[in-house]
């Protein structure tokens, strides 16, 4: 139907349909169900902390620091480890991924070793890293780095190997040298894959940092979980878990925004 919008522009405009409303409501419904489930479980057994208890523990946490670190300090401690490890993983991962994705000799030289190291979970490195570097900040960041660097290397390599021949031909016909082929053709072409690798790496890093903190740290959200477990403070465990979920989701949103910024041409497909 032809209508006039508020600027006096004539045309056919999208109307809000019942379907749109359903799509808008469904996420809230699912959260509602989750809360309901929580409520049911906590009312059956008193060992499982209820919502009110958890909320009160949250308020207490805001007032009373644990290990002299306030609540936001724990979040920042975890985020700091993630960010440092991620930045290092991005630099090293893209460089190494490019090396093995662009140079066949390097790929066959490093490929086997990399394929052997790749399936080892980052947490399996903890004993070796602990006896080598102790339990300071560096070993934690190193563990997170191991978890984050692998998806970046894999995606960079795969992205470079799947550059379409026609784009390479275009570069060739404009007489690009090997360096220009890499920077002007292959890298931009592989960018969406690399960014996807960084997204995977970010969520991996967030998981690994919490696990690393649970195994010996004096700050961080993962430490709060361990602390709650040791002190039999289940509401604290739940507060920490919810924090982990919220921050993880926020990190996902942020990386998606960065993806749209770096790959504007992907938005329109």
């Amino acid at each position, binding site marked *: 139907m032809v209508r006039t919008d508020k600027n006096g522009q004539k045309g056919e405009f999208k109307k809000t349909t019942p379907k749109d409303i359903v799509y808008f409501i469904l996420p809230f419904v699912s959260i509602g169900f989750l809360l309901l489930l929580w409520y049911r479980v906590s009312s059956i057994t008193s060992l499982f902390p209820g919502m009110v208890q958890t909320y009160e523990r949250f308020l207490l946490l805001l007032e009373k620091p644990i290990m002299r670190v306030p609540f936001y300090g724990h979040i920042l401690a975890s985020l700091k480890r993630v960010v440092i490890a991620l930045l290092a993983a991005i630099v090293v991962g893209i460089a190494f991924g490019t090396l093995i994705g662009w140079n066949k000799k390097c790929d066959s030289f490093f490929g086997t070793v990399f394929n052997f190291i790749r399936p080892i979970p980052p947490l399996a490195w903890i004993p070796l890293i602990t006896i080598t570097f102790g339990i300071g900040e560096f070993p934690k960041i190193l563990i997170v780095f191991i978890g984050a660097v692998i998806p970046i290397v894999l995606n960079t390599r795969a992205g470079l190997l799947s550059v379409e021949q026609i784009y390479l*031909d*275009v570069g060739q016909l404009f*007489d690009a040298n090997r360096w220009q082929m890499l920077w*002007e053709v292959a890298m931009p*072409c592989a960018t969406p894959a690399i960014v996807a690798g960084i997204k995977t790496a970010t969520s991996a890093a967030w998981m690994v940092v919490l696990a690393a903190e649970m195994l010996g740290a004096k700050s961080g959200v993962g430490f709060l979980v361990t602390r709650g477990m040791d002190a039999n403070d289940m509401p604290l465990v739940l507060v920490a878990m919810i924090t982990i979920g919220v921050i993880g989701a926020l990190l996902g949103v942020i990386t998606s925004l960065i993806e749209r910024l770096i790959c504007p*041409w992907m938005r329109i497909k």
Partner: protein
Amino acid sequence: MKSETVIDNRPVKVQVSHLTKYFGSLHVLDDVSFDIKKGEFVCVVGPTGCGKTTFLNLLTKIYEPSEGELRIDGELADPKKHNLAFVFQEPSALPWLTVEDNLRFGLKIKKLPKEEIERRVDRILKLLGLEEFRKAYPGQLSTSTEQRVIIGRAFAMEPDLLLMDEPYGQMDIKLRFYLEDEVLRLWREIGTTVVFITHNIEEAVYLSEKVLILSNKPATIKEELKNNLPYPRDIASREFVEMRKHITEQIKWW
């Protein structure tokens, strides 16, 4: 067929002599020789599978000829020295670059001065009427607009030799007509030497100043046909139809 002699004083730009190509024992091209004048528009037609693409790939130096040579301005053709541009059959705009950056692509690789790049890009954008799409990405454009960008990208190089391999092969007739006029306009404005491969005989007669008719494999030049019909050409005129029929007759392989 009536052939008028029009004096063509343009210097020879491309000189192909005794071009021969074997793939193993498969004889694809046999002793092909011809000249292209500076700024000339040459169309190449031939029966299916006669080696048109091989012919083109020899000109771009993607393949080395088994025998014979290709000279540009009297020197052996060398992609490092000579400026060759190429329009592929399939859309080949770089999806991560905007329209204007696609036009800049080859110029930047050649490391031309910035002002020169901007001058050429602006000119091509204007000539092709692409100004409104300047900041658009190829994915946002229709196939024909994308093909115009690619053609513009090739012309922006102001190449010594522009090779086009059935650039309108995938398009419907309306777009073809439109883009044929477009390519003629660019050619006239910029004065590029063009070799245009097509399987569409009408297109060859509509565009070219000279038609090279290739024979069946191993391909030789069956006929080198001057096309002096005045532009813009009337596809319904008697001379046009005659020439079209003549070429059709020539490439019949049955």
